[in-house]
């Protein structure tokens, strides 16, 4: 990428390169009662996602006659952060549930299941910065695991700025102490950004660079999501 971020003495708190993702582990099919499920560890984030549906919509008046309704829930366990948080959904949880829905909707053939609902539940068991992205990564794998037809996988990660430098995949500390945080979700095959938020301060150029950086991160995560799915279905290598 651009040469001005060449490293001299500067180091990230966990020793990563500026454009390096945290270690990621994704597993699919982890909840026997769900139609589809996934577990992700992204750094110290631990998140489990379950998908139920397509199924009949309850309550019925919320059903749409021409398409399925996607319902998403983002929720944090009381013990996932320090200090303990109330288990009641916060305003933040509500907003993230909504942007998660917007991030996933473009990928799903919702019009194939009129009058139904597809419910995606994500539970943050441990939070370490970037939970909304990790939740989207897990939810996508869970949706595929549930056999729901999709246009593409949705991969998500954040880029941001700390100490005046642009970095990929912010951890908790970098998220809190940094100057900007840009969570982004991306469908690599369709080349579309489906989640884009930001807070902090960035110039227009830095903003564009962050979006590009996060997209590169998403492409790497996309491969890991595919691996997780192939592993579950015992596909070792793809036929050419």
């Amino acid at each position: 990428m651009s040469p001005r971020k060449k490293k001299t003495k500067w180091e990230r708190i966990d020793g990563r390169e500026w454009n390096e993702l945290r270690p990621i582990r994704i597993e699919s099919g982890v909840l026997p009662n769900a139609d589809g499920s996934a577990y992700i560890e992204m750094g110290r984030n631990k998140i489990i996602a379950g998908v139920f549906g397509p199924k009949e919509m309850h309550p019925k008046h919320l059903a749409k006659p021409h398409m399925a309704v996607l319902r998403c829930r983002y929720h944090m366990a009381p013990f996932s952060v320090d200090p303990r948080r109330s288990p009641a959904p916060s305003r933040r949880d509500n907003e993230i549930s909504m942007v998660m829905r917007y991030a996933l909707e473009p990928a799903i053939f919702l019009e194939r299941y009129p009058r139904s609902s597809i419910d995606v539940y994500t539970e943050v068991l441990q939070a370490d910065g970037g939970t909304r992205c990790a939740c989207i990564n897990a939810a996508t794998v869970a949706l595929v695991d549930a056999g729901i037809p999709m246009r593409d996988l949705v991969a998500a990660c954040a880029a941001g700025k700390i100490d005046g430098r642009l970095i990929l995949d912010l951890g908790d500390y970098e998220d809190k102490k940094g100057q900007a945080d840009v969570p982004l979700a991306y469908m690599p095959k369709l080349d579309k950004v489906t989640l884009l938020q930001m807070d902090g301060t960035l110039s227009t150029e830095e903003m564009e660079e962050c979006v590009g950086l996060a997209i590169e991160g998403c492409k790497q995560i996309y491969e890991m999501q595919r691996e997780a799915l192939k592993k579950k279905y015992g596909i070792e290598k793809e036929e050419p």
Partner: protein
Amino acid sequence: MSSRYGIIPRLKRKKIQETLATGKRMDGRGLGDYREISIRTGIIEKAEGSAEVYLGETRVLVGIKIGVGAPFEDTPDEGVLVCNAEFVPVASPAFEPGPPDEKSIELARVVDRGLRSAEVVDFSKLCIIPGKKVYVVHVDLYILNHAGNLIDASAVAALAALRGAMKPVYKIEDDEAVLTEKKEPLKVRKLPVAVTIAKIGESFVVDPSADEEEVMDARLTVTVDDDGNICTLQKSGSEGLTLDEIKKAINIAVEKAPEIRAKITGSE
């Protein structure tokens, strides 16, 4: 993708798109035009600051109440800013009484992030006794008529109200904060302006109307500070955007922001 819409929105979308193809919008505006903005401040005497903004027919009333409370644990010597939005049922037949839904939470949080990221006020100056007592600034967004683009209208109203807000002065006696008769301005340092861009088909329009919001593919709100830096982004809507589309929207926002900011500074 048209099958994702019901029949009425589908017809509406078709009509809107046909009009956009001629370079105009249903209400006669150009694609990059805002509706008329009018700002009145100081209309609620009991509030420490207030402003009413009309953006076309969208009408938002913002009241600022300034109280005293405990600081957050991680920022013991900084004041607190709380933003809340109420979609009161008078504003639209689609609004129902009850606890805030996800749309009003989003509105409050996006406006809040804009104010906070740009540090509109010096939060360290809002501290009375470190770790114990700080000013708590409540920004309540009250939607009185919903005709589209609530975020931009609310952001303008919040800034206008904050600019005129007076905070009560406290003096410290024996480690206790005692209220005095005096009041002083809150001192707003920056004016982060929210610019919302809707993508409908291949067209990008600023300041979407309620009809346009109903049929849009995606929406991007970009908050731009006085130096042209970006301090908040919020993408919404059920379609994705390409990198080029994001860049285009950001550029539109950066270009448009000074125009809106001038309305705020020119309102007194």
